[in-house]
């Protein structure tokens, strides 16, 4: 029977079928960060003699809050640090830190056909490599650390075929938001999204990661893209340069529980106006006339409001969605020679990304524009450690969630691509790079 990419990866990792459609699924890689790992590691220490299935299948790092912001987060970091040391687990401490979904690919810990999990919902990012990678809770992660396996219900597979090619300023972020708007904010629940088509093939690995990162925002178990020459070239350049094969591909006649086709050439730059990532409009459009009143009340917007009329109080470029080097380069092109008019924070996805950006002089561009250039962490995305919003503050953000309170109690978040965030930071309202006045003396400024 012809099989999908997901089917092949899943089938190759099922250790045992369990009652009720569940299976014991082997995990090739377990990613462990300081926020969700400690309770599970401590339980294993107390109840199972600190015994792990295979420490070499785990990679750990300081991720969300780096460095610690208080004694509590210091204890989280220290707990993971000590645990990794005594278990011989590769550990990326502050200085070498980063968001796990940025570190794991850039170091080459993930590869095609692998399975991976982490106590972090955006683990679906790793599906960009043709892996089956998913977010789970702390106890499930502990189970994988203890026994090497997760207990999972086999998801259905939805093929998301993106034809044509992105154009006219549309980015992978716009495609990610368009996919969610197309299948619905919870339309992916119970499914793995398997992205196929010419527009997907044309994406770089970093763009594929942006797309897969937001599969969870449609409720999907994960997103997956079959590996190809682009994947191989990316992995070959990583420090770990893992051995891998490109053989795991969907059969041409594979059947899918559902197929959705999106014309990639018609994808336009979009910005969210509501309180979930499915609530988006084209940047040159309006807040829909039939937008839910509850979303608009929270966001203090009116139906029919022109998107580019929405004034902002803060801008943020960062997060596991859009803080890789290509995102920073794209944003820097917009900032170059211009000034921000609202508080703007630029947070690289890892210290490796930060150092690369500085080698290229991007940090000077951000800081010349008046933006705050920070070290790597999750930053303002989840309102946990820095750049938190006050009630009523409105932030345009390259992150992935605009839920009520996500970036701070009462804060309002508009999701967009890094170039749109940069343009908005300069305009002081939601706006696109094409609206920015040309810099007559731009070359002089650069010289």
């Amino acid at each position: 029977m012809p099989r999908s990419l997901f089917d092949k990866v899943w089938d190759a990792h099922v250790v045992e079928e369990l009652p009720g459609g569940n299976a014991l699924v082997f995990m090739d890689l377990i990613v462990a960060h300081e926020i969700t790992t400690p309770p599970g590691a401590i339980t294993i220490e107390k109840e199972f003699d600190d015994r792990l299935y295979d420490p070499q299948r785990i990679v750990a790092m300081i991720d969300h809050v780096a460095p610690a912001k208080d004694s509590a987060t210091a204890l989280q970091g220290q707990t993971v640090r000590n645990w990794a040391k005594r278990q011989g687990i590769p550990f990326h401490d502050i200085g070498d830190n980063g968001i796990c979904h940025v570190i794991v690919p850039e170091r080459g810990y993930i590869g095609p056909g692998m399975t991976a999990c982490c106590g972090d919902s955006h683990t679906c990012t790793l599906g960009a490599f043709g892996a089956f990678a998913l977010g789970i809770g702390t106890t499930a992660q502990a189970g994988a650390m203890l026994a090497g396996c997760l207990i999972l219900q086999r998801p259905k597979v939805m093929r998301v075929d993106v034809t044509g090619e992105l154009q006219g300023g549309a980015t992978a972020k716009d495609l990610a938001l368009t996919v969610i708007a197309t299948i619905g904010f919870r339309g992916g629940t119970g499914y793995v999204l398997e992205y196929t088509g010419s527009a997907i093939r044309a994406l770089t690995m970093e763009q594929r990661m942006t797309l897969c990162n937001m599969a969870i925002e449609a409720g999907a178990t994960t997103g997956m893209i079959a590996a190809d020459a682009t994947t191989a070239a990316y992995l070959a350049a990583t420090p770990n340069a893992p051995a891998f094969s490109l053989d795991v591909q969907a059969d041409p006649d594979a059947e899918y529980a559902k197929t959705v086709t999106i014309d990639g050439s018609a994808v336009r730059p979009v910005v969210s106006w509501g309180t979930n990532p499915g609530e988006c409009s084209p940047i040159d459009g309006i807040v829909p006339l039939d937008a839910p009143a509850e979303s608009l009340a929270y966001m203090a917007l009116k139906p029919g409001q022109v998107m580019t009329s929405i004034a902002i109080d803060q801008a943020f470029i960062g997060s596991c969605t859009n803080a890789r080097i290509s995102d920073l380069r794209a944003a820097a092109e917009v900032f170059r020679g211009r000034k921000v008019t609202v508080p703007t924070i630029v947070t690289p996805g890892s210290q490796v990304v930060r150092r690369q950006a500085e080698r290229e002089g991007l940090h000077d561009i951000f800081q010349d524009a008046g933006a705050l250039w920070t070290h790597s962490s999750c930053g303002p995305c989840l309102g946990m450690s820095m750049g938190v919003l006050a009630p009523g503050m409105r932030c345009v953000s390259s992150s992935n969630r605009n839920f009520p309170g996500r970036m701070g109690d009462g804060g309002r978040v508009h999701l967009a691509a890094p170039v749109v965030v940069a343009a908005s930071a300069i305009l002081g309202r939601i706006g696109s790079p094409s609206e920015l006045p040309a810099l007559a003396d731009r070359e002089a400024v650069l010289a």
Partner: protein
Amino acid sequence: MIVEGSVLPVRHANIDTDQIIPARYLTRIDTAGMGEHLFEGMPDGATLLAEHPGASIVVARENFGCGSSREHAAWALLGRGFRAVIAPSFARIFEENAYTNALVPIVVAPDVAEALMSAQHIVIDVAAETLRADGGEAVAFKLDPLRKQFVLGGGFLQFLNAKIPAIRSWEAAR
């Protein structure tokens, strides 16, 4: 196993785990103390909890528990005395976390959930997979047969621990 009590009606769809417990409280290495911050991220959370003191069953709309994977959401609900959540649908990770922690996740039809929001007292027979509101007709629901064991008797990690020899053989033969 009987779970019974009064209802906290959450009349919103898509309540994500940031609303159940905001990220600023994810700074502990244990699961204690989460209950006092339950629903702090939900705009009407404090009001709702104050209006329904002693409630032990959440009834919500579609897609409860979406977003972040934080198991803290289940710990916060349990820490505040909740023992079951009833909704037309759950996000996958929240549902898995709920089962693992014996917070019973019960899926019912949307109209049933709406009706249950006005109930005074709900009695849930977990083993029999039925519930009754205010002494009315029994409503049947379905639990995951494997995960139901973890609700009734705990032992999620023990279950996996017992599988290790089989997993090692599988891996060796890979």
